[in-house]
């Protein structure tokens, strides 16, 4: 029976549409994966010595102190990205297989998920270093196994709380507040949680507690799914209560308003697009790396422009990048309805512009780091509006990956989204403004650098109609290919 399940799994993996990407991308992905493994391995080995050299104290204690945030962060990432095991159960329901076996199999499958074993790349080398450095073998063993159990606990907690958004966001909010409190030294939760992690080392038998918790969670999840394995219970998709909304205030924009209304609903009511917007919000804080001097490599003057582009362009990159794929599930409708491409594109363009302006205003706290910093943001915004907004729409014509709006699975890094054309188009988006700035900065003065980048944006803005006509032509040319590609659902 298990063999049958495994062949199913094998086929579903190798026959998935995303696997059929071309060879270059596969090689690229393998290198990417190797790179990250190397980074984690390096971190696992290096963490101990880095902490020691920085004089932060006993490395194990330091790691234990932040363990609670690591665990919560892990849970958060799982909640957003980890696929639920129940999705493929339906076809198995009526077959002559015992229910408990189906449940055991689907839960067991989650154990082998990337989200579990990826942590091993940090913890195994770290534990080995602990042993090498003369920590007690028994203690290290207890600590390692205990932590491991906790990560598996996360796995099953995630399975159990999946789709309980309000619980999840409350916890997330709570821990964000705790994190801020800790930063400002008002209240330190790690004082209360670290002793537990330390105890895993000092009293290795404590690891049994963690394993006990894991066993409790596993049996709980098992019983829960076994009991709820019906189409209208555990396997039912979440249905939200719908409310008809008018947005009458958008009517004054005519046809453009019609599309904007739709786009607002698109963002509001779908998991995937919501994630994109939340991500774009975090982009605003990306500049902190640059302006606080936290990362030495970013101290060069031209990096300010880089930061400015990202701070104001979060939405542009996370949402704009995937126009028109957001509409992939009903693209044939859009193509046969009484719609002009120009209006369709213009509405997306406005959305990007509005979001860029909002980000720029929200980013005004950078004034704290001096007007120079905020000026970089404003200049970045002008460039985003005048040049990058077209480039993302243009690049979108070549990204023919359908988006499943209701799932977050591929929110980060869609493999097929990387093709030669879109990669080429990122160059002018990011590197060109740096070059333009460098030209002004080094030849004349920093101010002229800003003026140059700003001018590029304004000139681009002036050519709006010409550029739109061009992009429209490309979309029309790609139309049939796009429709065909969107038909191939993953």
């Amino acid at each position, binding site marked *: 029976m298990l063999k049958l399940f495994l062949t199913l799994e094998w086929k579903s993996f190798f026959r998935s549409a995303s696997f059929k990407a071309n060879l270059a991308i596969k090689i690229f992905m393998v290198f990417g994966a190797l790179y990250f493994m190397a980074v984690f391995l390096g971190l696992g080995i290096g963490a101990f010595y880095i902490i020691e050299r920085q004089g932060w104290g006993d490395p194990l204690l330091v790691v234990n102190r932040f363990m609670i945030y690591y665990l919560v962060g892990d849970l958060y990432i799982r909640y957003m990205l980890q696929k639920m095991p129940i999705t493929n159960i339906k076809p198995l329901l009526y077959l002559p297989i015992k229910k408990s076996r189906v449940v055991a199999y689907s839960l067991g499958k989650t154990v082998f998920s990337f989200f579990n074993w990826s942590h091993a790349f940090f913890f195994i080398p770290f534990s080995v270093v602990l042993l090498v450095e003369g920590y007690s073998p028994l203690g290290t063993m207890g600590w390692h196994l205990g932590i491991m159990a906790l990560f598996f606990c996360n796995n099953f907690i995630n399975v159990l709380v999946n789709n309980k958004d309000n619980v999840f966001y409350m916890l997330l909010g709570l821990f964000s507040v705790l994190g801020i409190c800790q930063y400002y030294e008002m209240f330190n939760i790690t004082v209360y949680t670290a002793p537990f992690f330390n105890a895993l080392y000092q009293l290795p038998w404590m690891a049994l507690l963690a394993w006990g918790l894991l066993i409790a969670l596993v049996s709980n999840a098992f019983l829960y799914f076994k009991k709820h394995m019906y189409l209208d219970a555990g396997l039912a998709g979440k249905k939200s209560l719908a409310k008809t909304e008018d947005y009458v205030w958008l009517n004054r924009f005519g046809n453009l308003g019609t599309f904007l209304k739709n786009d607002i*609903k698109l963002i509001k009511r779908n998991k995937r697009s919501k994630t994109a917007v939340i991500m774009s919000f975090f982009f605003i804080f990306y500049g902190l790396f640059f302006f606080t001097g936290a990362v030495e490599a970013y101290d060069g003057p031209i990096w300010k422009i880089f930061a400015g582009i990202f701070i104001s362009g979060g939405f542009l990159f996370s949402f704009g990048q995937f126009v028109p794929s957001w509409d992939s599930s009903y693209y044939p409708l859009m193509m*046969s309805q009484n719609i002009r491409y120009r209006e369709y594109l213009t509405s997306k363009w406005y959305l990007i512009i509005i979001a860029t302006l909002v980000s720029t205003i929200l980013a005004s706290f950078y004034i704290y780091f001096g007007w120079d910093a905020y000026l970089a943001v404003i200049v970045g915004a002008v460039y985003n509006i005048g040049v990058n907004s077209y480039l993302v729409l243009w690049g979108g014509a070549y990204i023919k990956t359908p988006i499943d709006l209701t799932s977050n699975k591929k929110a980060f890094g869609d493999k097929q989204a990387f093709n030669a054309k879109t990669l080429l188009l990122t160059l002018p988006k990011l590197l060109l403004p740096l070059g333009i700035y460098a030209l002004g900065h080094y030849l004349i003065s920093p101010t002229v650098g800003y003026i140059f980048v700003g001018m590029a944006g304004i000139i681009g803005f002036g050519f709006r109609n010409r550029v739109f006509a061009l992009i429209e032509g490309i979309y029309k040319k790609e139309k*049939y290919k796009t429709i065909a590609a969107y038909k191939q659902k993953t």
Partner: protein
Amino acid sequence: MITVQNLTKKYGESIVLNIENLEIPKGQSFGLVGNNGAGKTTFFSLMLDLIQPTTGHIINNGVQIDASEAWKPFTSAFIDETFLIGYLTPEEYFYFIGELRGRNKADVDIHLEGFKDFFHDEILGQKKYLRDLSKGNQKKVGIVASFIGDPEVIILDEPFANLDPTTQIKLKGIIKDLAASKEVTVLVSSHDLIHVTEVCERIVVLNKGEVVRDIQTSMETLNELEVFFGG
């Protein structure tokens, strides 16, 4: 109204559609029948410029479909669920289509009033998004939306499939009324021979991409079709 000339569609070596000549006059209710893979949906997709013809073209009301977009204002269709926007409520979807076709909210409301019976209280005011409706109810929404804005050509692919018997009968009534007005050209495809013979004045049978029968519907039509498909 609609003229098809030397239309072929090939995928690689296989010809999936090959229609030398076909004329559909204005106001006709036109039925397309054929087995799976006969080319019905291919033909409708070509009518909507969703795929490109290999050779030939279709002219809809004087507009060559693959060359101009001017056919869009007077043509509407419901082919499958890719014509629905899942995250909208039925009302929002109707208003959206209405706005695209130059009808305001009040116009659409009046339009929907006429389909109250057809909806059978399962569509409007349900607090559900389209993606959460059943297949049959989704189909009802798509079909009614295709009537918004007084289109002159309406294309419906398999409109009877997935509908409950009551709704099927009501839909037949609606299509007959449209046909009777002689203003609207309705193109319907179906696997159900009884339904098409009932609502269509003319039935074309496709087989492996070619027109093999072109019949003006009469009392004998159903028999003729059953013999064709049975034999």
